[in-house]
């Protein structure tokens, strides 16, 4: 049965394995150099490496490939696995040899599914290992060019560690189950692609923040930690919509931020004088700009009146906790979908 599974699967397997191997080799060749640079330039590592175009290219390509692996595996390995048999009627041939349908499915799912896990694992390992110096530098507060997103933030998080493996296993099982329900390869491939991509987009918004209860903290805005001030309305008399502060420390994932007053009430808008905490208006004359009180006065008043930022966030050191939880959740979903396939295949299918 393993022979037959491999015989039917080898083309798709080799295409994906080829792409993964090509990238893995490139990463393996350039990775040690990157690590050397990291040790040589402890303080401006990212600024040093951003001028070698290959580094930016590999950083982006690795990320893209890790994100592409689950939808591709789900659609082109998972969806046709059973759908193609049902479509061509060959299930009536293979289910009437001397082995049971259950054993047939066990072999197909295990062989192809473990291949998916192994390949995605290799890919993610290579990308995570290669990017590790860059991610460390970003978490230490450096930033340059494309290298400015901490690994806990959604654009990077899903392309590191064990999460891609969980997604690949899930996408594969989802493809198989959809193929079994839809029974037509092309439709099943399209639906699987759309579903997996949708889940990749939605889970950082809907799922990941809640895997561990976010930390809530209060931050008082100061000259140093202010990161944004949003004004609206006429320039002479703007309404202050909101003000944003940076969390202490690097690499945290900020989920929400609101301003509360001394009584702890959430503020939809801030008093007009807060506009003075920002830079002068663009068309203000030099004398006008000169006559503005120093920024520290404004921030002092903000602190004195009891305004503070309520921020909920995931701290940088929760990276692996969130990784394992998310991967585990998708593994469980993959098992549930496989269970559905076993249940369905024992019933009538003609």
């Amino acid at each position, binding site marked *: 049965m393993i022979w037959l599974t491999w015989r039917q699967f080898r083309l798709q397997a080799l295409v994906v394995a080829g792409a993964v191997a090509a990238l893995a080799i490139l990463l393996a060749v350039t990775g040690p150099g990157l690590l050397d640079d990291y040790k040589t330039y402890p303080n401006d590592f990212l600024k040093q490496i951003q001028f070698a175009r290959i580094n930016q290219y590999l950083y982006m390509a690795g990320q893209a490939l890790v994100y592409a692996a689950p939808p591709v595996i789900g659609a082109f390995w998972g969806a046709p696995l059973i759908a193609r048999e049902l479509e*061509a009627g060959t299930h009536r041939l293979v289910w009437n040899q*001397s082995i049971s349908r259950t054993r047939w499915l066990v072999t197909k799912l295990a062989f192809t599914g473990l291949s998916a896990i192994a390949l995605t694992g290799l890919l993610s390992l290579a990308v995570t290992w290669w990017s590790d110096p860059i991610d460390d530098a970003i978490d230490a507060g450096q930033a340059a060019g494309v290298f400015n997103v901490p690994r806990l933030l959604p654009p990077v998080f899903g392309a590191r560690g064990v999460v891609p493996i969980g997604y690949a296993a899930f996408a594969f099982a989802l493809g198989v189950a959809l193929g079994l329900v839809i029974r037509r390869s092309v439709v099943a491939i399209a639906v699987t692609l759309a579903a997996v991509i949708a889940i990749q987009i939605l889970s950082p918004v809907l799922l990941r923040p809640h895997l561990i209860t976010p930390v809530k903290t209060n931050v008082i805005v100061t000259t140093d930690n202010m990161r944004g001030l949003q004004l609206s309305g006429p320039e002479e008399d703007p309404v202050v919509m909101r003000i944003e502060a940076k969390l202490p420390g690097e690499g945290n994932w900020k989920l929400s931020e609101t301003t509360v007053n001394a009584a702890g009430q959430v503020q939809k808008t801030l008093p007009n004088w807060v506009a003075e905490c920002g830079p002068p208006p663009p068309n203000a004359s030099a004398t006008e700009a000169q006559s503005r009180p120093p920024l520290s006065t404004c921030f002092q008043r903000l602190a004195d009146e009891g305004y503070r930022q309520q921020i909920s966030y995931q701290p940088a050191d929760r990276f692996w906790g969130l990784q394992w939880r998310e991967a585990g959740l998708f593994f469980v979903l993959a098992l549930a979908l496989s269970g559905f396939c076993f249940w369905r295949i024992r019933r009538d299918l003609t």
Partner: protein
Amino acid sequence: MTAALQAQGLGKRYGRRWALTDCTLDLPAGRVVGLVGPNGAGKSTLLNLAVGMLTPTTGSIEVLSSAAGTSQLARIGFVAQDTPTYARLSIADHLKLGAHLNPGWDETLANGRIQRLGLDPKQRAGRLSGGQRAQLALTLGIAKRPELLILDEPVAALDPLARREFLQDLMEAVAEQELSVVLSSHLVSDVERSCDYLVVLVDSRVQVSGDIETLLATHYRLVGPRRDEKSLPHNQHVISVSHTDRQSTLLIRTDEPILDPAWTVTQLTLEDLVLAYMGRSSQTKQNDRPVLEVQR
């Protein structure tokens, strides 16, 4: 004598539609059974139930004296409708598949058959003609050395020549291996050529079932002056009747000699017999329709 296939009150429903209802059947082992019926009569459903591809909605079915299902896959060879094969795998790959998936695989038999049929083992199954593909599917079915071989309309898509060759080949294989065969077809000629036992299935009901020679020896066409079929002796069972003004034509089944000199008695062909049973079912179904008769 053991039974190849036994069904008791067997029924299968797809959603709201019954594909097979109340089917009771007893097919002896060691025979080549022809299962004949119009399209949609439930032949495929019955055979799929026998191999365990489907599970019965009502009743029970036994194959080779144990309940049908996937537990006895190795004992039954099945050539499914339209003889499916993997289009992208070669003939050699198919034989390898058979060898890997069947403990009782007879490699000599399989290779010998492919060689004798003049097929190139490297050729992909998708490139084969309908007849060659059917032969490949049959090879897979036979080489696993089953006790019972079930074929679901194996020749339906074949041209007359390929049809004859396939059935001839099947008969040779059966003679060599002494296996029981159940073969379905909607054409009587296929059955006539290859089978020695007949089952007529119409509207999911078994109309007649028996040894073909016995059936032919006990069925007659009677032609004579017009008379009511109710006046026949009790041992003569009427299958079909047609009257003109002066003349009656009856198809009857009887084990006794026909003594009434008023009848001109002729033997039936298998086709006449099957058509008579098929016609009977449509009459009983639409019994509100007047019997066809020329009015003057």
